[in-house]
């Protein structure tokens, strides 16, 4: 699928600004450098995830390579009091929310099934069941509206997820209750090996209209456009004007996850076509053409990324294994007799080994 003329773009792949009747790029030297730093760190952190998986430190890693602009654009559009319900590939948005990337790595290492406090950073746990979180986001947004609170809710999902009933149910609930939620679909063209043509017969952003709210397609490799479009959608939500669907038209450059082999289902031409639209390269081109960044700046970004990646690697390797008794931790808030009984049996069984070793 190709984006149509309605696609919002503010920065071309060549690094040139274009004007749009409705959306405007926020360009200052500092702002643009920050966006570049964010994307560079996301890419580096993500690459570290892939490497660590290859080294056997992680069981799996879903790479965001190619989706940095979509995620940083959406992530930097958020206000502190907004709440995010992510999918499982939204590492860059997690970074924007100041979630320690160690949490993300630990989840894919198998230390936890989530493990962070969602309320601390207004960033919910990753959701692995495709599309489920869009309903949680909608319910949360319904609650936000009831509370008379100002924040909006952003929820992320893929193009494949739009085929799930839950996503359609979420669209409908959000519309019916005018919930302050922004549906952020990263259409990275592939749902593992299934392309868009296996998910939909109409451009995804057009679906929103059938539910009674606006849908917008944005160039998902253009961080300025993603930022502007998401900001406006969040403002609409906060102003009580209800949900918006954003389709960030982008591309997953890597494998679906580290266990996937994309060579079996997609060709290198497609990859090259999208490589030319790289989200970082176009911001770099703009920074250079404006004289807002020089070689030293980019070298500094790289050095800092390396330092952070190396610290992350060390921290991950030093992560303690969870104690076996954790199986029984937090199953219920109010406790459960069966869990208590099994915990005691398990402890006694474990202790029987220690006793034998001691002898």
């Amino acid at each position: 699928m190709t984006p149509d003329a309605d696609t919002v773009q503010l920065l071309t792949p060549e690094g040139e600004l274009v004007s749009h009747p409705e959306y405007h790029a926020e360009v200052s030297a500092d702002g643009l450098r920050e966006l570049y730093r964010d994307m560079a760190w996301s890419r580096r952190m993500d690459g570290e995830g892939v490497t660590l998986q290859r080294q056997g430190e992680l069981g799996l890693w879903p790479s965001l390579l190619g989706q940095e602009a979509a995620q940083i654009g959406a992530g930097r559009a958020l206000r502190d009091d907004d709440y995010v319900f992510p999918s499982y590939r939204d590492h860059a948005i997690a970074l924007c929310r100041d979630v320690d990337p160690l949490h993300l790595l630990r989840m894919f290492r198998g230390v936890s099934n989530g493990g962070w406090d969602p309320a601390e950073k207004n960033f919910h746990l990753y959701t692995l069941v495709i599309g489920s979180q869009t309903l949680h986001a909608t319910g949360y947004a319904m609650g936000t509206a009831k509370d008379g609170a100002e924040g909006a809710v952003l929820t992320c999902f893929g193009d494949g997820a739009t085929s799930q009933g839950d996503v359609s149910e979420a669209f409908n609930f959000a519309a019916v209750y005018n919930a302050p939620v922004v549906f952020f679909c990263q259409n990275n063209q592939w749902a593992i090996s299934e392309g868009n043509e296996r998910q939909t017969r109409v451009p995804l952003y057009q679906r929103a209209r059938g539910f009674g709210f606006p849908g917008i397609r944005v160039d998902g490799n253009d961080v300025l456009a993603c930022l502007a479009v998401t900001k406006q959608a969040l403002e609409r939500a906060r102003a009580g004007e209800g949900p918006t669907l954003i389709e960030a038209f982008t591309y997953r450059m890597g494998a679906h996850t580290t266990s996937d082999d994309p060579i079996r289902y997609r060709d290198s031409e497609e990859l090259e076509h999208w490589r030319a639209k790289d989200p970082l390269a176009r911001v770099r081109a703009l920074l250079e053409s404006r004289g807002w960044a020089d070689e030293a700046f980019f070298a500094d970004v790289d050095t800092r990324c390396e330092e952070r990646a190396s610290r992350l690697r060390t921290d991950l390797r030093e992560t303690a294994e969870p104690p076996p008794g954790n199986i029984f931790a937090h199953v219920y808030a109010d406790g459960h007799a069966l869990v208590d009984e099994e915990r005691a049996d398990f402890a006694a069984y474990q202790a029987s080994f220690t006793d034998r070793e001691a002898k």
Partner: protein
Amino acid sequence: MTVTTLPLAKALNESLRKAMEDDPKVLLMGEDIGRLGGVFRVTDGLHKDFGEGRVIDTPLAESGIVGTAIGLALRGYRPVVEIQFDGFVFPAYDQIVTQLAKMHARALGKIKLPVVIRIPYGGGIGAVEHHSESPEALFAHVAGLKVVSPSNPSDAYWMMRQAIASDDPVIFLEPKRRYWDKGEVDTGTAPASLHAAQVAREGSDLTLAAYGPMVKVCLDAAAAAAAEGRSLEVLDLRSVSPLDFDAVQTSVQKTRRLVIVHEAPVFFGSGAEIAARITERCFYHLEAPVLRVGGYHSPYPPARLEQEYLPGLDRVLDAVDRSLAY
């Protein structure tokens, strides 16, 4: 005076009303629960008194109802969800099992999901397909969920209050054929704990263990058996998960015989779990194998056949005879 005589459905209604009065965060969600008051009228009048912001008529989408209830709970609300009929919970089963049950543990206890899912369940009312099922084992098997079922109006009132107060997700199974049965409800007396079994009738020869709609059948069976000089104890389990095995053990150590009765299919049902554990705990006390009476391994039959399918007085007494014959 706080004692009134109410049908079970009305006791639930009073319970929901009290919970909503006490806590503005309690919300009701479901299909037709607003102006109609629910197809069984359990939410009757609540829409009028609390408004559509707290008694929410939802789109016809069970996954949507439970999924958004999760979101509302994350935001600090205490949603009480009505699934219109037992057979329609399955579109929401995904949200219940994969999300609702696990999220507390995934967040290392940092988030709580006080969601109650009310399901009118079980047969005996001559309903059409999908309106008479007993899915308790499917929920009890899932860690993170609690599963309870009252058998009388007093328990209906108090167990609902306790389920709403619980910080865990509770599957609240309402025995629909008992909705119109009346009983005394003392709204002033402190209740038994939500998960404690209670002796509904004392006896010394054999224990009948049941919950929800089958408690009355067992009480009737015990009355019939008494006429023949047999003393049956009836244990109302009230909670399927957690299950009060201590109470079952105490009763079995006294009577030395156990028959478990439920409407759900026997195969892999809650009776199997009880039988296994009680065999382990009471091996030297038992005079007979633990027996089970329940539904067959068949889809719930058409209404004209449900009396064959459901355990009635005769099948319960037959199992009692078999147990006593050992």
